[in-house]
């Protein structure tokens, strides 16, 4: 059996985390988390990560690992040190899944519709997005690419900053804003266009640019140079080690193959 779409996305997420720096990699959700672990075990050994709680580990914690399977801690990074050590020093790269993204890379995790006093839908709140967004690199994973996520105009509430010139306070320092990549179920995008516009840089096998554009509420730049690479044998073996209970199979409905039209 060939690789699944989930595994293809994991490899694309791992590529997003590629670095020579020693920084904390935070992947929120199964695909980004396995991706961060795969990056550390292959091309980016300097990456640091936590056990999901307060300790730094040098071996990524497999998803769902119980007591005895958990790697021993090598360091300590509780909440009280997290902002001082990782976020506000820029020593982190987070991959998150916001509810909305706009063409400026601004995201929303706070609320939808209505007013600030009475939102139509109250969500989580801004969490750490405002600080993450202005201090360290960020990427996104979107499991269902649609115009409801990639909205026309601006997001309903701006929870994390992006590249919107209208949102710049004169004299503010925005040099830390560093949006890297967006991995979705259809493609990989980056912010390499004019004025940091979003470009499609690779399409997953069997997907067309027109399909991606149709699923996006704003205009995209076609900078596709290749198909998103399929996982190799070594990568698949490491993914299995990072996710022995197969949580990745539940991310996409019916766990489709990486190559659309294949079975």
């Amino acid at each position, binding site marked *: 059996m060939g690789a699944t779409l989930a595994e293809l996305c994991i490899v694309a997420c791992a590529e997003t985390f590629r670095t020579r720096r020693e920084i904390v990699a935070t992947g929120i959700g199964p695909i980004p988390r396995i991706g961060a672990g795969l990056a550390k075990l292959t091309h980016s050994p300097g990456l640091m990560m936590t*056990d*999901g*709680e*307060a*300790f730094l580990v040098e071996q990524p*914690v497999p998803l*769902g*690992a*119980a*007591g005895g399977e958990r790697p021993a801690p090598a360091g300590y990074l*509780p*909440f*009280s040190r997290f*902002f001082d050590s990782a*976020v*506000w020093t820029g020593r982190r790269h987070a991959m998150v899944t916001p509810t909305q993204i706009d063409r400026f890379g*601004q995201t929303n995790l*706070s*609320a939808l519709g*209505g007013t*600030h*006093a*009475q*939102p*139509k*839908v*109250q*969500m*989580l*709140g*801004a*969490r*750490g*997005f*405002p*600080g993450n*967004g*202005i*201090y360290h690199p960020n990427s996104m994973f979107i499991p269902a690419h649609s115009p409801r996520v990639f909205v026309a105009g601006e997001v309903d*509430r*701006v*929870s*994390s*900053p*992006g590249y*919107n010139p209208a*949102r*710049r*306070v*004169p*004299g*503010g*320092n*925005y040099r*830390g*804003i560093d949006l890297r990549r967006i991995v979705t179920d259809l493609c990989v995008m980056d912010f390499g266009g004019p004025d940091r516009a979003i470009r499609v840089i690779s399409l997953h096998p069997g997907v067309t640019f027109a399909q991606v554009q149709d699923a996006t509420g704003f205009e995209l730049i076609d900078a596709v140079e290749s198909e998103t690479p399929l996982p190799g044998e070594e990568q698949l073996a490491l993914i299995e080690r990072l996710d022995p209970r197969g949580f990745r199979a539940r991310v996409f409905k019916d766990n489709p193959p990486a190559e659309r039209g294949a079975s």
Partner: protein
Amino acid sequence: MPTIDKTMDPAAVVSRLRSGMTLGIGGWGPRRKPMALVREILRSDLEDLVLVSYGGPDAGMLCAAGKVRKLVFAFVSLDEIPLEPWFRKSREAGAVDVLELDEGMFQWGLKAAALSLPFLPTRVGLGTDLPELGGLKTVTSPYDDGEVLVAMPALKLDAALIHVHRADRRGNVQALGPDTYYDEWFAKAADECFVSCEELVDAMEVARPQDVWANLFERCFVTGVTETPGGAHPTTMPPAYGWDMGWLKKYAAAARDPGDWGAVAEWAVGASEADYLASVGGREGVAALPLPVF
């Protein structure tokens, strides 16, 4: 030598609080929350509170019961149940005002209060909706850089509530879990800090000197201590016990059906803490709750 004795019962703690107060609650989401004291507030006639919390069921319950005028928050979550349904209900009904912050600027506000400063400068919030919605102002660096920064106002608390593993009568506390979140800053940002504990001892230097590294803040920041075994239930209290996800699921489901706080307050709060603890399996039942795996 005369001794200091700060012990009091939960009702005495709550009798020290007043309607309209700004109240900070330690812990993080569904982790290490002083829930016995929160339940005692829910049994009281306190209202009109400004609640400052990294929100979990404390925020959801106090909002649902109509105790909260304004919530200062960065998120409200039950972790495995990502969105806190009672909090959502209150917000979507327009029933509670908010100051929405970033997690980091939130602790910055507590630190400003702890240091008796009016604000602390930060880049956090620039480029987002938070400053405008929250009425936050900017400040310009007086140095050559001239940088414009958000002035995060001090989150000065009238009182803070915190739950720990052990305390002694004089207010020495020990918290043994892997993470103590921002509890020390809640304690220092508050005029008065009340600490509930799983175990009260007479003198920490006799009972547990080997755990003195787990002392979160000095006893001068503690106004009162109260023993509430199982007092973090239904939230986690590692290494003592985990969260009660069964309870939290029932609590979350009740936000839809019956959807009325009055109908669930009886079992979610209980007539007394003893009744409540008995209803969730007693001390032994709570102590047996497994620690969650992340």
